[in-house]
């Protein structure tokens, strides 16, 4: 309908359709009362109608029902309409009263106006006139109700906003640039240690909330915002409370309207992040402390490693020379005492030479072991399955009589130093190969299993096995838990010690399980992403740089 004026989203309903409104009709003449009540309910089907026959009963009914509108005759027995209206008005000044009056009631009417009865209809009743007055009153009631509801909603949302600000420790403010006045939310006052509303906020007072050294920062932020240059930027500033304590706040500002300069309004927030910042600071301090300790311990370890290095240098060079000398004399002795030397001379010379050889082997083994602790790792992807297959092939080539079933789980790829891992895997396989030499159907299995979220790699055999009480001896150098001659022993006694060193260098763990006669399983884990190089020998610079 083109003639109808545009309405807001809150449409005001037609008075006759408004529900939830009640009307009290007080009239002492029974016929008129019934008739009028009937007409009213026909014309206003949504209106709740109560009726009473005099002022006293009317007042009682009003107390019970609290209707919005009271329509009353004036001249009535027991209590007249004017007295009743006065009583009702004192109960609720907002109530709408319509007086139904005869011309003779003029003196009463003047009283009625005084009381606040603003509407009247004349007797004898003209229904058109009556409905006109009721329509007007209903419209007022509906409008008042709407305004009341909206007010309520505004109050509620303000309450909610204030509550949220309080919970979040988020204060807000508004700066009217032209007059320099400001509005601060209650929470802003509280953040700053002030009683809400305890002062008249303005720009200067706002600045003074902050620590002196932070005020230029705030001024800068405010003026950037005013120029429309605030790039969703925030500042952390210190607020100085009257009690001397400090809070750390995150301040943000933004231009409210497009209008810049004097007429503009800048709005912003002030978020108390003291606890957050303190926690952050604590984390930073802890991290720093941790880093310092890492550096300290690393340098301790480095000192140990460098001692180990000079020790192994000593072993490898200084000890080697006299051993070689000893061996030289043994050889000389052997040569010179001839085939038929005195007594057991020749045999002794031979054995002494053998001992010198053993010492040399031990020195070599020692060097090879310390090498794994000192060398730099070259980390890359290694296909362990492929390595195992190659090593198994080599073992078969060197020992063609043996029939060993080798089962390799395919596609096991890990990150690590390819050469070192090959050495480790090869030692484990050699070990399995050796200890299945007396097993009829020898079987060696390589695979991976998941154990508590960690990949565990294993080499399992059905060979001689071992007694678990010797399990911790297995990985120590030069230890053997089998009786001499029980198995062909041609190694240096450091195979498993090498495995141990290499796995350790890869941040992993190695262990063995077995039972005599039922084979052994060697398992190991690896750090998923081991570090390249060797931080123990490369100095701390790389660590520090990372910090």
């Amino acid at each position, binding site marked *: 309908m083109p003639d109808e004026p545009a309405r807001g989203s809150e449409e005001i309903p037609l008075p006759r359709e408004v529900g939830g409104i009640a009307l009290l009709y007080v009239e002492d003449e029974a016929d008129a009362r019934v008739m009028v009540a009937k007409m009213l309910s026909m014309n206003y089907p949504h209106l709740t109608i109560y009726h009473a026959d005099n002022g006293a009963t009317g007042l009682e009914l009003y107390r019970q029902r609290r209707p919005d509108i009271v329509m009353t005759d004036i001249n009535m027995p027991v209590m007249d309409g004017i007295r009743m209206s006065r009583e009702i008005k004192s109960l609720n000044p907002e109530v709408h009263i319509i007086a139904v009056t005869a011309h003779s009631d003029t003196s009463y009417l003047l009283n009625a106006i005084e009381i606040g009865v603003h509407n009247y209809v004349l007797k004898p009743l003209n229904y058109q006139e009556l409905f006109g007055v009721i329509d007007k009153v209903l419209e007022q009631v509906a409008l008042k109700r709407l305004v009341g509801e909206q007010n309520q909603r505004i109050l509620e949302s303000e309450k909610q906003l204030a509550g949220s600000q309080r919970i979040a420790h988020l204060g807000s403010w508004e700066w009217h640039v032209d007059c320099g006045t400001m509005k601060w939310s209650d929470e802003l006052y509280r953040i700053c240690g002030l009683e809400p509303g305890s002062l008249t906020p303005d720009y200067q007072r706002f600045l003074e909330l902050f620590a002196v050294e932070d005020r230029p920062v705030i001024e800068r932020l405010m003026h950037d915002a005013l120029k429309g240059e605030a790039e969703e930027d925030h500042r952390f500033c210190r607020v100085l409370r009257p009690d001397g304590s400090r809070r750390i706040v995150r301040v943000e500002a933004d231009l409210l309207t497009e209008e810049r300069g004097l007429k503009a309004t800048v709005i912003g927030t002030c978020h108390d992040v003291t606890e957050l910042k303190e926690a952050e600071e604590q984390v930073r301090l802890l991290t720093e402390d941790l880093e310092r300790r890492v550096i300290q311990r690393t340098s301790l370890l480095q000192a140990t490693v460098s001692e180990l290095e000079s020790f192994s240098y000593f072993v*490898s*060079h200084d000890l080697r*020379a006299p051993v*070689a*000398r000893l*061996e*030289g*004399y043994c050889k000389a002795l052997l040569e010179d005492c001839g085939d038929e030397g005195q007594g057991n001379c020749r045999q002794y010379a031979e054995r002494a030479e053998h001992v010198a050889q053993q010492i040399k082997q031990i020195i070599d083994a020692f060097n090879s072991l310390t090498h794994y602790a000192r060398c730099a790792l070259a980390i890359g992807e290694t296909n362990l399955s492929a390595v195992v297959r190659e090593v198994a092939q080599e073992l078969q080539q060197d020992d063609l009589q043996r029939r060993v079933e080798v089962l390799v789980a395919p596609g096991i790829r890990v990150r690590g130093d390819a050469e070192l891992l090959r050495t480790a895997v090869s030692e484990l396989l050699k070990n399995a190969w050796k200890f299945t030499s007396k097993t009829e159907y020898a079987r060696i299995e390589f695979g991976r299993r998941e154990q508590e979220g960690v990949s565990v790699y294993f080499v399992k055999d059905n060979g001689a096995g071992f007694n678990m009480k010797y399990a911790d001896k297995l990985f120590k150098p030069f230890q053997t838990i089998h009786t001499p001659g029980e198995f062909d022993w041609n190694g240096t006694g450091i195979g498993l010690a090498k495995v141990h060193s290499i796995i350790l260098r890869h941040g992993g763990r190695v262990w063995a399980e077995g039972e005599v006669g039922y084979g052994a399983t060697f398992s190991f884990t690896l750090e998923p992403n081991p570090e390249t190089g060797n931080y123990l020998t490369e100095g701390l610079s790389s660590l520090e740089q990372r910090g």
Partner: protein
Amino acid sequence: MAESYILLVEDNPDDAFLASRIIRKVCPDEILVARDGEEATELLQRMARDGSYHRIRFMLLDLKLPKINGLDLLLWIRKNDQLQKLDVAILTSSDNEMDQERCFELEVLDYLYKPMTADMLQRLLRHREEG
């Protein structure tokens, strides 16, 4: 004056004794022993002056020596106009791979581990003759 010499540069008397014993079994040459790098340098300089350095068949050089070590001595020899072609074999108890690499760069005949045996020396001589 002997026909030819074998120069043994060795500081340890036991090692010098053991090496000399083997050399005497295999070679007829006279053995000259220098007890450190400096002594060896002085001897070689003297022999370079009087021309007798030609008669050194080869030199057995220990690496770990007092004063001037074996590697520096070898370097000095390779830079000396007269001596640079001198045949040198290393005789050491060290298994340092870096040393070994460096020595082969400086064109040594061989790198022998102590104790030297007659077999080892004979192999060295054969190798030297074959060039």
